[in-house]
């Protein structure tokens, strides 16, 4: 009888310690999740603004070598010319102001028949008048918006947020981070909007 009571007491102590640990653990997890999502939001919007302004791509495609590189990659020797001609379906195009890449306009006749993507050094074509259906990007970056916009900021923001969540105490993050969650995106939009001013002051 005595043993039974002892076991019951021990069992109830064990249960109550679990009951105490449960909410504490849930609170800790919640604090970690909070730190992570807030840090990710700040890091993503900050990186997006910086990388967009610097025009750093997530991947660089070298058509001559047929290679796709992670991040920014300048052409190595033997990988051929670094310019990409891209066919455009219009008679005369204005230079795009977005993106920051150097772009030039050339005659359609420089492209071999049937080629929609081809490589030519820009220097060889210099001096041609601008009235064309082709343009050249400064150096061979994969010219796709989905690569140089949102996704370029996401992986480093995710890694950075995970690292900060692991190392920074939640209390410190809670005090410092919360207001920045709104300040950074709005400041980023001001910077990015300013880079588009050329559209609105013509």
């Amino acid at each position, binding site marked *: 009888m005595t043993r039974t009571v002892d076991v019951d007491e021990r069992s109830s102590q064990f249960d109550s310690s679990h009951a105490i640990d449960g909410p504490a653990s849930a609170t800790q997890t919640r604090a970690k999740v909070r730190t992570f999502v807030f840090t*990710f939001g700040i890091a993503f919007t900050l990186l*997006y603004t910086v990388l967009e302004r610097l025009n750093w791509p997530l991947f660089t495609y070298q058509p001559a070598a047929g290679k796709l590189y992670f991040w920014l990659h300048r052409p190595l020797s033997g990988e051929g010319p670094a310019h990409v001609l891209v066919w455009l379906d219009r008679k005369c195009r204005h230079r795009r102001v977005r993106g920051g890449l150097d772009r030039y306009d050339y005659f359609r006749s420089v492209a071999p028949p049937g080629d929609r993507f081809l490589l030519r050094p820009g220097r060889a074509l210099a001096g041609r008048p601008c009235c064309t259906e082709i343009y050249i990007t400064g150096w061979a970056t994969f010219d796709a918006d989905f690569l140089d916009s949102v996704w370029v900021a*996401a992986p480093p923001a995710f890694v950075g947020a995970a690292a900060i969540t692991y190392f920074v105490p939640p209390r410190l993050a809670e005090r410092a981070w919360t*207001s920045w*969650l*709104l300040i950074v995106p709005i400041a980023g*939009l001001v910077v990015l909007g300013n880079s*588009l001013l*050329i*559209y609105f002051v013509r």
Partner: protein
Amino acid sequence: MEQLRHWWTLGAFEFKEHIIAMGIGLLPAYWYLWRQPLSEEDAGVRRWLTVFLAVTVWYAFGAGHVANDFRGIGS
């Protein structure tokens, strides 16, 4: 749009990409802030984050709609 020199429409459409990217980056925080039970201490940031996301969505809707309707110009 470039050919017809409608720069405002083009600029507004370009800006849409940025504002939507910012909104996407803040979605995890939005999810966290609206988890039940709602935290009273986060009421302010929850309200303003929701306003920000509403602005992004409505701006994208408006800019996309205008850009889409632009196809009718000159036709």
